[in-house]
Structure formats: structure tokens, C-alpha cells
């Protein structure tokens, strides 16, 4: 029997549901990724590239068993962006990533969701470390990394994105109670 489906676990934080990305989310992403607001995350890009990129994020789950979750605000049901665990072929190291839609900026959602995905990485998947790659000018994202307890490690020259900062997350041992329990 051929097994072709895969499941994406749903996580929950105080204000957010982390669930599988779906077509409705892609409309937000297309608008965001076409705009200058996406300049630190590979944009601006045309809608067909945005669609492919989102499809790829979903397929990453099937190939790796982890990936990006869509963030849905509990109160409004609105799509706020995505946070997740990322390691496509050729990637430097396993990464925790976050990209929020502009309407979700400045409310602590990235930190809240990244904590939950870090807990998933350490407690469920057994990762012993993780990085985040951040554009040097992306102060908002670096602030999220700091709040998570991550620290700047080094610069990396990426053939596609140019100079990128590598931030190193606290490992499971450095976290007082470990993942999910500490957060909840």
C-alpha cells in the first residue's frame, strides 16, 4: 500500500493556533511577498513564485517531518504569518524561522509562536540545537531572536541572499525546564 499523505500537528499557544498552511493563507502571503515589506525574506517576488514557495513549505513536511505552521489568531481567526522548523537540502543547519504579515507585527506573536516551535523541535523531534538566519538590517527579527534567548554567532555569505547573520538558539540543556512546559 502506498502511503502518500502526511500529517501536520496542530499546536496551541496563548493567543495562536499553529496549524497546516492552506490556500486561503496563500492570498495573504502573495500580497505580502509582492511588497517591499518582504525585502528581508526574499521578496518582493511575483505571485507565482510566492505560491510555489508556500507549496514547497507544505511539501517540506512530507520530506522532513517538520516545517512551517500557519499562525491563526484565536480571537479573530485571522492569518498572522508563519513560524516553523526548516531544513531543506543544502541548508546550513536546522533552523527556526518566522515571518509575520505586517498586520501582525509588534504584538509578540513571532516570539510566542517561535517558542512553541522550538519546544516542538527539542521535545518532540529531539533537536539539540537550532539556528536562525536573519538579514543584518532586519532589526525586528533580531529583537525576536534576542527575546528567545538566541545570540549572534557569525556572518554567512549566502549565494542568493548575500550577507546573513546566523543566530544560535539556546539548546535544550540551557532551558530551565525545557520546552513546552516552560512555555505553557
Amino acid at each position, binding site marked *: 500500500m*502506498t502511503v502518500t499523505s502526511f500529517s501536520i500537528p496542530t499546536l496551541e499557544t496563548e493567543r495562536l493556533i499553529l496549524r497546516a498552511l492552506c490556500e486561503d493563507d496563500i492570498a495573504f502571503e502573495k500580497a505580502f511577498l509582492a511588497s517591499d515589506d518582504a525585502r528581508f525574506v526574499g521578496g518582493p517576488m511575483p505571485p507565482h513564485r510566492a*505560491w510555489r514557495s508556500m*507549496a*514547497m513549505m*507544505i*511539501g517540506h513536511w512530507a520530506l522532513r517531518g517538520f516545517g512551517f505552521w500557519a499562525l491563526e489568531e484565536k480571537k479573530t481567526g485571522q492569518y498572522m504569518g508563519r513560524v516553523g522548523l526548516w531544513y*531543506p537540502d543544502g541548508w546550513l543547519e536546522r533552523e527556526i524561522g518566522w515571518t509575520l504579515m505586517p498586520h501582525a507585527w509588534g504584538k509578540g506573536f513571532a516570539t510566542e509562536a517561535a517558542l512553541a516551535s522550538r519546544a516542538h523541535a527539542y521535545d518532540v523531534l529531539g533537536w539539540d540545537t537550532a539556528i536562525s538566519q536573519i538579514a543584518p538590517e532586519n532589526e525586528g527579527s533580531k529583537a525576536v531572536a534576542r527575546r528567545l534567548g538566541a545570540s549572534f554567532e557569525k556572518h554567512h555569505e549566502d549565494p542568493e541572499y548575500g550577507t546573513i547573520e546566523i543566530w544560535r538558539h539556546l539548546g535544550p540543556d540551557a532551558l530551565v525546564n525545557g520546552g513546552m512546559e516552560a512555555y505553557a
Partner: protein
Amino acid sequence: MTVASVITTPRLRLRRPEPSDLPAYTAYYMGPRSHFVRGPYTKAQCFEKFATVLGHWQIRRFGRYTITLEDRPIGHVGPLMIEGDKAPELTWTLWDGAEEGNGYATEAAAAVRDHLLGEAGWTLLEILVQPDNAASLAVARKLGAVLTDQDAPDWYPGCLTFHLTTEPMQ
């Protein structure tokens, strides 16, 4: 109408792609035969492309099938719809040149055509082929596709566009 996740033909089984197809898929896209589809690509790009194929199924509930011959993956065939407001594109590729010349691509593509334009109730499929890709042009003709004068899309310059519809062929 629901699109089938498995289609069988006299010699082939078409099924949803699965992670174990990645090595054969990658060998094709890293190799010289992928020049008709803007290749060759790096291994990392192949991973991204294949993940996109898997995600396409998850989002749209249809996508490219892996063509299997005696359980061995030998190519892909099926509809792609990256932009929701455009006609789906029917694509096919045999991953290994050694499988060419047996009519597998035509057999697979005809079965997908029959399913989509028949049971699934679709009305139009586009086929994009580079003018010097003689093998694929032959498949398009055998499928009964009609050449149009549509301009090539930006992402696939120079290609010819064919239409497959439910209209009876001349």
C-alpha cells in the same frame, strides 16, 4: 469532482508522489535531459521543486502523479495549477532516457487526460512544449492537442501552447 489519487493503465500505475521518489526525480533534474524544462538544477533546487510538487497536491487536491512501472518510479505526469485563475497545465516527463520509445509518456498522459476531461469534469488543459522537444511534441499530437497562437508565459520563454478540450477532434 474529486480527482483520483491513483490511475492505472495497461502497463503503468500513476500515483501521488511520495518522498521515496526524490532520488529518481533529482537524477532527472540534475541531468542533461532536463534542458527542455530550464535545467539542469542543483540538488538543493531539486529538493525544493519536489517539495513543491508534494505541496501542490496538499493545497489543490490534485497534482502531478508519479508514473510507476512495476513499482519503479519512471517519471511524472499530471496537471499543474500554480495560478488559480489560469487553465491547469498538463505535464509529462520520463525521468530516464532509457524508458523512452515505449509509449509510456503517451499512455500515462492519455489516461490523465481521460480522467480529468471525463470523470473529473474538467474542460480545458494547456500543454506547454519547447519547439525543439520532438518527443514531447509527438506526445501532444497523439493526445489530440490543438496548437494555439498563445504567447509563452514569462517563466517559460519560447514554448508552444496547445489546448486539450472535451470538444471532438477534427
